[in-house]
């Protein structure tokens, strides 16, 4: 009996491949894995171009080599000192926003939920601006942005009476919360002395041109912790797309999973806003692209992170080059790309379906 089962290799479920080596095996979903490969390839290409393009142009391949310390000294200095920090900030911000948007959309059961729509961006911005106007410690913006993001999310959740079952109410309540917090940001900027107001300006449009090193480091650490947590939560989240009763009967502890997903989303969004300001539409488009590539099954956390990073780096590249020497802030580029997609989503009849 035992020899019979050992002889026949188990057939993997459709859509997955079985990787086996030395008695251990791993079930790999084919389409999401392919999506990750495609996104990584695209990301490397866009990063190379982004490092190469600038006031002194380089060949993409040489720019990529220079990023790793190979090639002429001046090129290495140019790329590593000037262009690499900006690219890193863009990658981190995009990945964080992609993950935040994906988790929020699954929890809210709505493809339109983004940190921007439910007021998290505005909360983080208001608190971060308050910290720039008031406190001047290097890590203050990140800490305050986190607090602001959590406050806004809690407000929207509490006022809407839950996220999953109330349809669009969560989003429109979030819109209202965001409007109040945005007004508070303007209030702070008007009251502040002109230098402090200038220092706080990047948070109001969404830009990568003023990346404070402290918040970038914090974002890197936060993302390193949040991404594995998101992958773990993501496996549970797939059940949350079913009605609450069904998910519970399948063994998911619905309130706890929801809370964990929201916490990860708030951490990602808050830290990202502290670096790049509000880039809300990234969190809308990146998860959608990841889902399109990875197929309807599962919650593509890694794919959303890669798509977000790709989007922000590409948008920053476009903003720097299209209207040069004027630099269009990356927040405006993503808004121009994301808003039409948002409108199309709202108007297409299929958008009533949950993600």
């Amino acid at each position, binding site marked *: 009996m035992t020899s019979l089962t050992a002889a026949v290799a188990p057939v993997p479920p459709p859509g997955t491949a079985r990787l086996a080596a030395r008695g251990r095996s791993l079930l790999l979903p084919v389409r999401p894995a392919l999506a990750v490969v495609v996104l990584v390839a695209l990301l490397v290409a866009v990063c190379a171009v982004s490092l190469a393009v600038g006031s002194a142009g380089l060949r993409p391949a040489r720019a990529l080599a220079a990023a790793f310390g190979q090639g002429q000294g001046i090129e290495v200095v140019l790329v590593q000192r000037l262009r690499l920090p900006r690219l890193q900030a863009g990658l981190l911000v995009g990945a964080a926003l992609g993950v935040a948007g994906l988790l929020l959309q699954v929890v809210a059961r709505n493809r*339109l939920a983004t940190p921007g*729509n439910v007021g998290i961006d505005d909360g983080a911005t208001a608190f971060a601006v308050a910290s720039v106007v008031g406190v001047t410690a290097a890590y203050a913006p990140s800490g305050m942005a986190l607090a602001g993001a959590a406050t806004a999310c809690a407000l929207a959740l509490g*006022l*809407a*009476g839950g996220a999953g079952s109330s*349809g*669009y*109410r969560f*989003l*429109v*309540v979030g*819109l*209202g*919360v965001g*409007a*109040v917090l*945005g*007004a508070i940001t*303007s*209030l702070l900027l*008007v*009251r502040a002395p002109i230098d402090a107001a200038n220092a706080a300006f990047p948070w109001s*449009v969404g830009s990568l041109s003023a990346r404070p090193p402290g918040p970038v480091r914090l974002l890197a650490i936060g993302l390193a912790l949040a991404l594995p947590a998101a992958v773990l939560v993501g496996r549970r989240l797939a059940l949350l797309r079913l009605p609450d009763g069904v998910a519970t009967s399948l063994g998911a502890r619905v309130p706890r999973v929801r809370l964990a997903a929201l916490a990860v989303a708030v951490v990602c969004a808050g830290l990202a806003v502290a670096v790049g300001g509000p880039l809300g*539409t990234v969190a809308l488009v990146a998860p959608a692209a990841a889902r399109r590539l990875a197929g309807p099954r599962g919650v593509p956390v890694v794919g959303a992170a890669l798509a977000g990073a790709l989007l922000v780096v590409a948008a920053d590249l476009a903003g720097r080059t299209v*209207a040069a020497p*004027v630099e*269009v*802030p990356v927040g*405006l580029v993503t*808004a*121009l790309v994301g*808003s*039409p997609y*948002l*409108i199309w989503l*709202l*108007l297409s*009849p299929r958008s*009533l379906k949950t993600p």
Partner: protein
Amino acid sequence: MHTGRTYGLLLPAVALLAVGLASLLLGAGDVGPVRALAAVAGGGDAEAAFTVWELRWPRTLVGVVVGAALGVAGAVLQAAARNPLAEPGLLGVSAGASAAVVLVLVLGGSVATLGPAAAVLGALAGCAAAFAMARLRGVGDDPVRLVLAGAAVSGLLGALTSVLLLVDQRTADEVRFWVVGAVAGRDAGSLLGSAPGLLVGGLLVALVARPLAALSLGDDVARGLGHRPRRARGGAVAAVALLVGSATAVAGPIAFVGLVVPFAARALVGPDLRRVLPPSVLLGPLVVVLADVVSRLLVRPYEMPLGVITALIGAPVLVAVVRRRRVPAL
């Protein structure tokens, strides 16, 4: 019922008079209420008289006119869309008007001559987009979803405006005003350019009020009563575009007034549009002038953008409407 209607007009009228007086007496500068009162009474020193009659009086006047236009436009738009959340600012009508003005400026036109016309055309485009969305299946049935679509349109137009301003630095300073919304620094003369649009818009509202009120019973009933639903809606769209476009040409985009005013007016006199309109004419100026006074006092000696204050007043109302168990259909 009759006493309710009387109070519904008396209350806002008294409040408007009080707020208007406060607008003349209070300010961010040095002229205090006592000196200003002397100037209002016809006496007082030269500085006080100048401050009251050359600075505070014009902006109060502009606030009254803009507020009335926005309040009425909000009431009409809500009745025509049968949606208590339909607000010109939220649905992208104001954003359309302000984007059109910026476009005219960037293309080299003069704001003084082309501004009002461009703003009305932009508002018309924004209004048409909002209604096209409201008529779509699934979107129009869900008032809350329409607001999200409007927010998306506003966001897109706002980003376009910002890009235009970035590319053309010359006009940036001239235009910044149309992007935020304010009644400060507007002289009464700027009202003249917008007066025709406001008058025609008001006239149209008077014409479509009765058919629109009948539409709240449903298209079929309204047709049975001898009204033409399509023509009534078209008239409403034109009226809203004229009112909001003209108001935006004077004061820039001011959000949430068209949401708060009909909300309060319905609380005073009930849901019938014909009864809602008169108090709206009074409540709109009340909200705008009150917000303007607050904007002067909050951060003395500086002033706040007016739109910030109206957002602080209006967003809680938005949350309150959405929080109701079922958003009531109009």
